[in-house]
C-alpha cells in the first residue's frame, strides 16, 4: 500500500506551511528561558475547569490538558487575529503517514518518553490510551471527535488507526487527542498522569490548580517557569483587578470590554483564537413561525449590521463574518460572503417577497451573556426598520441549549465554540454539526447535509476547497444559521511574559513561556 505524508495544509490546499511560529518573539524567549526554572506563573481564568479528564473536551479544560498531557501531533496558530494556522507538528509521534485512500493513519511513537509517575511510555500505552478515548463508554466527548476511527493496532513501534470510511478529518482531529497513562484510567479526577511538561500537584475545584515542572520531560522545556498555578475567578471584575494589581501574569477568557483597561496598564490584550461563532440561528422547522418562510430568513440575514455589532458590542476586537470562515481561510469566497452584507433595502425586498404582513418572531439570548443581548438589540432595531418584529427573551443558558436541541425555539443568538475555525470544525459546532446538533437527523436541511458530507469526503485539496465553498453557498440559500462574528475570548499577558504560543485546538502552550 502506498503511503503519502500529508500535512493538514496540504490536505485542504493551504499555502506554504509555517512551522511552529510564535506570536510574540518566541525565539528570543527560548534563548532567555532555558535552564532557569525558578518562576511561578499565575494564570487567572474566568472559566473554571469542569474536569481533569483529558478525554472530555470543552473550552475550560484546554489550558490544563495542554500542560499535563501531550498530543501525538499538534497545529500551532501563527497569527492573531486572522486565525492563520501552521502545519501539523510531531509531538509524541515522530512521524505520521496517511494512506492514499485516507483510511489508515500510521504514527511512529517516540522513544524515551516517561509518564509523570516515572514509568516509560510504550507504543502499547499509546494504543491503549487511544482505545480508551474512542470507546464511547470511557472516551467522553473525545469518543465523538474520533468516531471515524474504528480500530487501533500496534505494529512494531507504530500505532495504526483505521477509519470506517475515507476520512481527511481524522488526522486533524487527532490533534485533540492526549495520551494518558493506562495505569490511571478512570482516576483522572484525582490523579491525572500524562507525559506533559508540567505534572499535577494540587487541585481545589473552582479555586485553583497547581502544576509543577516535570523534570523528566522528553524534550527541553524552554521556559523558566517552575510552578504553574491556575486561579479560577467567579467574578470577572475580580480577575481584572487581580491583573491590574500584578497578581496575575496571564489572564484568560475575560471580558472583551476590559481589553483597553489592561492595555492601559501595560498588558498585551487580544482576542484569543478560540473561535466562538456568534450566530443567529433561525428555526425553519416550526410551521407556524414567520421563520418558516425562507424570504423572511433571507431578510433577517441581510438586516444584521455586523460592523455596528463589532464596534459597539465587541469594541472592534472581533472578526465580522457572513460565512463561518475568516478571510484567511482558503475556503473563504468574497463573492459568497458579500451576499449577506448589511443591506436593509435588499432585506425589505425579501420581506415584501415573503407575502407576510407584520412578521414577528421570538429572539432568544442566554441570560448569562450580556453581549448576546446587545447583539440581539442591534438586530431588533434594524429589523424594526423593515417591518419585522423580533421579541427578545432571556433564557437560562442550559435551557437555551436544550430547547435548541429539541427544536423548541424560533431564533437564538448563539455562541458556539469550535477551537479554531476550520472547515472540519463544523463537526464541533453544535449548530452546524450535520448529524447531532440542534438540526440533527430529519431536521437538517438535506441540501446542507449532503453538501457537507460530499465536501468532507473529498481528498483532493483544490476540489475540497471548491466543495466547501459550495457548502457555504448552500448555507446562504437555505439561511438557517446566520454568522455574525467570530468572537475570541479576551486574553492578556503582563509585560513580564514572553513566548506565548497558541495551539490551534488547545490554546495556550505554557512550555515556551518566559517570565522576567
Amino acid at each position, binding site marked *: 500500500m502506498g503511503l503519502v505524508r500529508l500535512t493538514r495544509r496540504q490536505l485542504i490546499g493551504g499555502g506554504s506551511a509555517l512551522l511552529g511560529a510564535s506570536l510574540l518573539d518566541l525565539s528570543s524567549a527560548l534563548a532567555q528561558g532555558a535552564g532557569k526554572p525558578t518562576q511561578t506563573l499565575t494564570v487567572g481564568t474566568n472559566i473554571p475547569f469542569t*474536569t481533569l479528564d483529558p478525554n472530555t473536551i470543552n473550552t475550560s479544560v484546554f489550558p490544563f490538558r495542554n500542560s499535563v498531557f501531550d498530543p501525538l501531533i499538534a497545529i500551532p496558530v501563527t497569527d492573531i487575529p486572522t486565525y492563520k494556522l501552521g502545519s501539523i507538528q510531531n509531538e509524541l509521534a515522530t512521524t505520521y503517514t496517511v494512506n492514499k485512500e485516507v483510511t489508515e493513519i500510521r504514527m511512529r511513537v517516540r522513544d524515551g518518553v516517561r509518564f509523570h509517575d516515572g514509568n516509560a511510555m510504550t507504543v502499547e500505552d499509546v494504543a491503549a490510551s487511544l482505545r480508551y478515548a474512542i470507546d464511547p463508554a470511557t472516551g467522553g466527548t473525545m469518543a*465523538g471527535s474520533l468516531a471515524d476511527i474504528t480500530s487501533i493496532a500496534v505494529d512494531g513501534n507504530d500505532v495504526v488507526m483505521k477509519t470506517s470510511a475515507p476520512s481527511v478529518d481524522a488526522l486533524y482531529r487527532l490533534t485533540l487527542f492526549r495520551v494518558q497513562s493506562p495505569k490511571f484510567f478512570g482516576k483522572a479526577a484525582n490523579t491525572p498522569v500524562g507525559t506533559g511538561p508540567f505534572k499535577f500537584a494540587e487541585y481545589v475545584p473552582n*479555586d485553583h490548580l497547581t502544576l509543577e515542572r516535570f523534570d523528566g520531560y522528553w524534550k527541553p522545556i524552554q521556559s523558566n517557569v517552575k510552578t504553574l498555578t491556575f486561579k479560577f475567578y467567579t*467574578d470577572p471584575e*475580580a480577575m481584572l483587578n*487581580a491583573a*491590574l494589581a500584578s497578581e496575575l501574569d496571564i489572564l484568560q477568557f475575560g471580558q472583551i470590554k476590559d481589553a483597553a483597561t489592561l492595555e492601559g496598564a501595560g498588558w498585551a490584550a487580544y482576542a484569543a483564537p478560540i473561535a466562538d461563532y456568534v450566530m443567529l440561528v433561525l428555526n425553519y422547522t416550526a410551521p407556524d413561525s414567520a421563520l418558516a418562510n425562507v424570504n423572511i430568513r433571507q431578510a433577517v440575514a441581510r438586516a444584521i449590521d455586523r460592523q455596528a455589532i463589532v464596534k459597539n458590542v465587541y469594541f472592534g476586537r472581533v472578526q465580522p463574518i457572513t460565512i463561518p470562515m475568516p478571510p484567511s481561510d482558503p475556503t473563504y469566497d468574497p463573492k459568497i460572503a458579500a451576499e449577506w452584507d448589511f443591506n436593509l433595502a435588499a432585506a425589505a425586498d425579501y420581506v415584501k417577497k415573503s407575502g407576510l404582513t407584520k412578521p414577528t418572531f421570538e429572539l432568544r439570548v442566554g441570560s448569562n451573556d450580556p453581549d448576546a443581548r446587545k447583539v440581539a438589540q442591534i438586530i431588533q432595531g434594524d429589523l424594526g426598520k423593515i417591518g419585522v418584529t423580533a421579541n427578545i427573551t432571556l433564557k437560562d443558558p442550559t435551557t437555551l441549549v436544550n430547547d435548541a436541541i429539541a427544536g423548541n425555539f424560533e431564533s437564538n443568538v448563539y455562541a458556539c465554540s469550535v477551537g479554531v475555525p476550520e472547515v472540519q470544525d463544523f463537526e464541533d459546532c453544535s449548530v452546524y454539526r450535520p448529524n*447531532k446538533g440542534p438540526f440533527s437527523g430529519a431536521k437538517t436541511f438535506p441540501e446542507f447535509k449532503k453538501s457537507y458530507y460530499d465536501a468532507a469526503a473529498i481528498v483532493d485539496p483544490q476540489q475540497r476547497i471548491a466543495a466547501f465553498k459550495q457548502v457555504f453557498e448552500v448555507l446562504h440559500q437555505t439561511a438557517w444559521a446566520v454568522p455574525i462574528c467570530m468572537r475570541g475570548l479576551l486574553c492578556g499577558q503582563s509585560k513580564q511574559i514572553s513566548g506565548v504560543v497558541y495551539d490551534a485546538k488547545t490554546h495556550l502552550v505554557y512550555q515556551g513561556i518566559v517570565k522576567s
Partner: protein
Amino acid sequence: MIGFIVRRFLLALPVLFGASLALFALLYILPGDPASFVLGDSATPAQLAALRHRLDLDQPVPVQYLLWLGRLARGDLGESLVSGYPVARLIGQRLPVAIELTLGALFVALLIGVPAGIAVGVRPRGWLARAIDMFNATAIAVPVFWLGLLLQIVVAIKLGWLPAGGYVALATDPVKNLRAMTLPCVTLGVGTAAVLARFLATGIAETMTRDFVVTARAKGLAPARIIVRHVLRNAVIPAVTALGIQIGRLIGGAVLTEAVFNLPGLGTLLWSALVQRDYFVIQAVTLLAVLLFVIVNLATDITYGVIDPRIRTGAR
C-alpha cells in the same frame, strides 16, 4: 442551663429538615441541566442520558430526595457532579476560609461597632455622634460587592498596600494571611459594625436615663466605670440580638465578598455550584449555612442567659 441548650437544639431539628426539603424543591424548579454543563454542548444525547442515569437524575424528584436524605443520614454528602470530588472534601477545604472570614468580619464589626456605639450612646448630640451616624448610614447602604471593588481599586491597585485577592492559609504564612484577609474582613464587617453601633447606641442612650445610672452618678462613680459596669450590661441585649442576626448576614454576604476577593470559601463554592447546577454541592453548602445559622441563634440565646440570668431561669 444544659436543659435549656438541649431544648433549643431539639427545636432546631425540624428547622433543618424543613430547610432541606425546601432546598431540594427549589433546586428542581431552577432551569438547567447539570449533565449538559459537565459534558458541554458537543455531547451526544446518549452521553447526556448515560450521565443523567449515573447521577440518578433520571429518577423522580421525591426518589432523588429520599436517596439524598439516606446518604446524608449515613454522613455521605455525595460527590460533586462536576468535579467528581467528594462534597465533604470540598467543604473541608473551604470551611476554614469561611470561618476565618466570618470571624475576621465579626472582629472588625466589634472593633468599630462597640466604640462607635458607646460614643453615640453617651453623647448622642455631639459632633462625633453625628459623624458616626453618617458613617453608619453609608456603611449600611453600600452594597458589599461595591465596597469590595472600591477597596481593591484604591488600596490594592492604586496604593499597592494590600493584595487585591487570593488566600494564603494561616498555617502557611500568618503575615500573608493577615494581608490577604484584611480587605475582605473590612468589606464584610463594616456593615455589621454600623448595625451593631446603632443598636448599642440606642440601648446605651436609654439606659443612661435609668434610675440606677443616676444613682451611680450621684455616688460619684467615674463615668467610664458607670458605662462599663452598669450601662453596657443592661444595654447590650438588643445589640446581641442584632449581632446574632448579622452573623447570618455575614454568612450570606460571604458569597459576594469571597467572589470579589477570590477567596476559596464556601461562598465561591456555592456560587460556582449554582452556575454549574452542581446539586449535591448546593444542597450540602446551603444546609451547612442553615446549620451554622441555627447554631448562631442557639449561641445568641445562651448569651442572653449568661448576660441576664432572668431569661435562663424564667424569673421576672
